[in-house]
C-alpha cells in the first residue's frame, strides 16, 4: 500500500530557528546576531519532512519560532514553501535563554496556539540541532514539556496506519526502526531529505498569510521562566581556542616523488625540544 495512504488530516507543527550566517561573538560575549541570517539548516530538513508528510496524508502545518522580530524572515520563507500558519514569540525578556528556557517558551507557545484554536497536536518536527547552539537538546525538552514521546536523529518517516508512524533513527554504526504512535516529536537530521524550494502556488497563497507575533505575557509565560532569569545554566566565560600546532610545513619543490620523500623524511624527523 505504498502510495495508498489514509487521509489523516494531521495537525503538524514545526519549530524553526533563524541563525546568523557567520558565527561570531559580540561585545557582550554572546552570539552576535546583527549580521546576515538564515533559517537554521537542520530546520529546513524538518520543514521538508512536515511538507512531505502532509503531501502523503493531508493536514495542516504550523511553523513556530522564538527570536527577534526579524525572525519573521524565516517564517515567511516557510509559508512560501507551503506552511499554513506561522507564529513568532518575540520578547526582549527571552534574551539569554538556555535550552531549558527555550523549550519552556516554545512549549508554552505551542500549548497556547492549540488551546486558542481548540486543537490537538499530532506530530511536532524540529531540526536535530542548530548551527549556533549545536546542542540538539531543545526538541527533546519540548517533547518532555508537551508530555509526548520523542525520536531524535530521524532519517526517514513512513506512515504505517492511522495511529502509527514508522521512524528510522541513526545510531552509532547503524540505525533503529521504531513504531511510534501519535502524538510524537521528531528531530530530523540533514541526511533525511533534500528540502524543496518555494513553490509558485504556495508563494501566491503565502501573500495572504501573516506571521502572528506574540510576547510572553500574551501566551502566559511567567517572566521568572523566561530568558536568562529562567535559565538553569549561565555562560560564565568564553575564551578563544588556541591552536597550539605550529604553521603547516608545505612541500612544493621538485617532482611528486621528491615532494613525497621530503615530506616523509620530515614526518620522521624528531623535533628538538629546547
Amino acid at each position, binding site marked *: 500500500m505504498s502510495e495508498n495512504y489514509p487521509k489523516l488530516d494531521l495537525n503538524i507543527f514545526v519549530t524553526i530557528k533563524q541563525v546568523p550566517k557567520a558565527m561570531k561573538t559580540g561585545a557582550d560575549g554572546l552570539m552576535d546576531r546583527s549580521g546576515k541570517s538564515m533559517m537554521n539548516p537542520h530546520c529546513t530538513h524538518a520543514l521538508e519532512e512536515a511538507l512531505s508528510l502532509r503531501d502523503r496524508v493531508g493536514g495542516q502545518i504550523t511553523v513556530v519560532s522564538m527570536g527577534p522580530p526579524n525572525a519573521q524572515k524565516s517564517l515567511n520563507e516557510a509559508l512560501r514553501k507551503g506552511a499554513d500558519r506561522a507564529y513568532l514569540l518575540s520578547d526582549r525578556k527571552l534574551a539569554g535563554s538556555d*535550552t531549558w528556557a527555550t523549550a519552556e517558551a516554545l512549549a508554552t507557545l505551542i500549548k497556547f496556539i492549540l488551546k486558542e484554536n481548540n486543537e490537538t497536536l499530532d506530530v511536532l518536527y524540529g531540526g536535530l540541532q542548530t548551527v549556533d547552539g549545536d546542542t540538539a537538546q531543545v526538541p527533546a525538552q519540548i517533547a518532555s514539556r508537551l508530555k509526548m514521546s520523542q525520536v531524535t536523529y530521524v532519517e526517514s518517516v513512513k506512515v504505517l496506519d492511522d495511529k502509527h508512524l514508522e521512524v528510522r533513527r541513526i545510531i552509532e554504526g547503524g540505525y533503529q526502526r521504531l513504531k511510534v504512535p501519535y502524538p510524537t516529536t521528531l528531530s530530523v537530521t540533514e541526511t533525511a531529505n533534500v528540502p524543496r524550494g518555494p513553490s509558485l502556488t504556495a508563494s501566491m497563497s503565502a501573500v495572504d498569510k501573516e506571521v502572528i507575533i506574540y510576547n510572553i505575557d500574551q501566551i502566559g509565560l511567567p517572566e521568572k521562566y523566561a530568558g536568562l532569569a529562567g535559565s538553569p545554566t549561565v555562560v560564565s566565560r568564553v575564551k*578563544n581556542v588556541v591552536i597550539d600546532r605550529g604553521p603547516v610545513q608545505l612541500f612544493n619543490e621538485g617532482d611528486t616523488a621528491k615532494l613525497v620523500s621530503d615530506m616523509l623524511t620530515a614526518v620522521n624527523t624528531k623535533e628538538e625540544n629546547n
Partner: protein
Amino acid sequence: MSYPEKDSKIPFVDLRDGARGIMVWAPLDGDKISEAAFELIGEANRQKSKLDEDSQKIIAVLIGKEVDKHAQELIHYGADIVYVIEDDRLEEYLTLPFVTSLIDVINEAKPEIALFAASTLGRDLAPRIAAKMNCGLSADCTEFDIGYYANRKRNQRFKKAFKMIRPSFGESKLATIIGPFNYPQMATARPGVFRKLDKDSSRTGEVIKFQPKWQEGDFAVELIETVRSSDSLDLTKADIIVAGGFGLGKEGFDMLNELVAAIRANGQNVELGASRAAVDAGFVEYKHQIGQTGKTVRPAIYIAVAISGAVQHIAGMKESAKIIAINHDPSANIFLSSDFGIVNDYQEVLPELIKQVKAGYKFDLD
C-alpha cells in the same frame, strides 16, 4: 583558600540539598559496555578530589537485559556504586523507560553531578531528564573542572561549582557553562575525549539492584529492529589513520585502501577513516566516520586526503600527534590544523606515497 576580594560582599551558598557524588550513565554497545562509559568514569575519578569528602563517590547506572554481569567491570574501571536495572524489554535503548530509570536513580542516589556520553543515545536521553528535573544541561563538553564561581546578578557564590567546558561558535571558542542552582548539574561529554583509568581487577564496590517505577506510556514506542554493521572497527586504537574526503569519490577510496594495505604490510597498526560527507555519499561505511556523530581519534599519525576540514571533522581528529594533509586546494581549512602538507591532486600524490611505503618506509610513532 583565598577568594577574590571584589566578591567579598557576595554570600557563599550551598544549594545542593544533600546531593552528593558523580553519576555516570553506562550505556551498552551491543553486548559490552560502551568505551564512553569507562572514559567518563575515568574523568569523574579525576574530578572527584575537588569535591567535598562526602561527595567523592562515583555512581554508575547500568540499564538493560541481563546486564548484571557487567557491573564488576564498571567497578574495576573506577565506579564505587553500580545501580543495575534489568528488564527484558530493555535489551536495546528506548527513550522513555531509560528516562524513567535514570530519574528514579537520581532521586534515590541524589548525585550532585550527572554525566552522559554525547552519543546519539546520550544526546537523546539527557535533555529529556534535564527538562523533567528542571536542571541545567551542557552539551558536548570536552573539559571539566570544579571550583569557585561568583554570580553577581543572583548575589550568590559557590565554592565548588561544576564547570562544563564546551566548544562553541563553530569550534572557534570554548565556553564555560555553570549551573550550580539546581541539582544534579548535568552534562553530556564527547566520546573519545577523556581517558579511562587502567583496569584494576582488585577494586571493589557496591552493586545495587534497582526497580524503577514505570510511567504510563513508557513502552508506547516499540522497537522494530536495531541494525548495526556486523564487523566492528575501533578507530580509536589505530596508530595511524588514513582518512579520505568527499572529493576522492569511490575510485579515490580504492586508492586510499591500497595505501592502508601497504602501511599494514609493513607491520604498522593502521585503519581507514573518512569525513562525514564521504560517508553520506556512500563511498565508505559509517564505522569509518570521524567527527560529527562519528569517532573522536588521536592517533600518532593522521593522513587527511582530499578532506577540506569542516569544523566538526577537525574536532574529531585535532588531538592527533602528527597531521599530514594532501589537498589540491591551498586555501582548504585542513592546512590550518596540519603539520605537514602537499598542495596537489590526490591522484598525483597517492601513487607515489604508496610506492614509497611499499619500498619500506615506516612512520615513526614516537
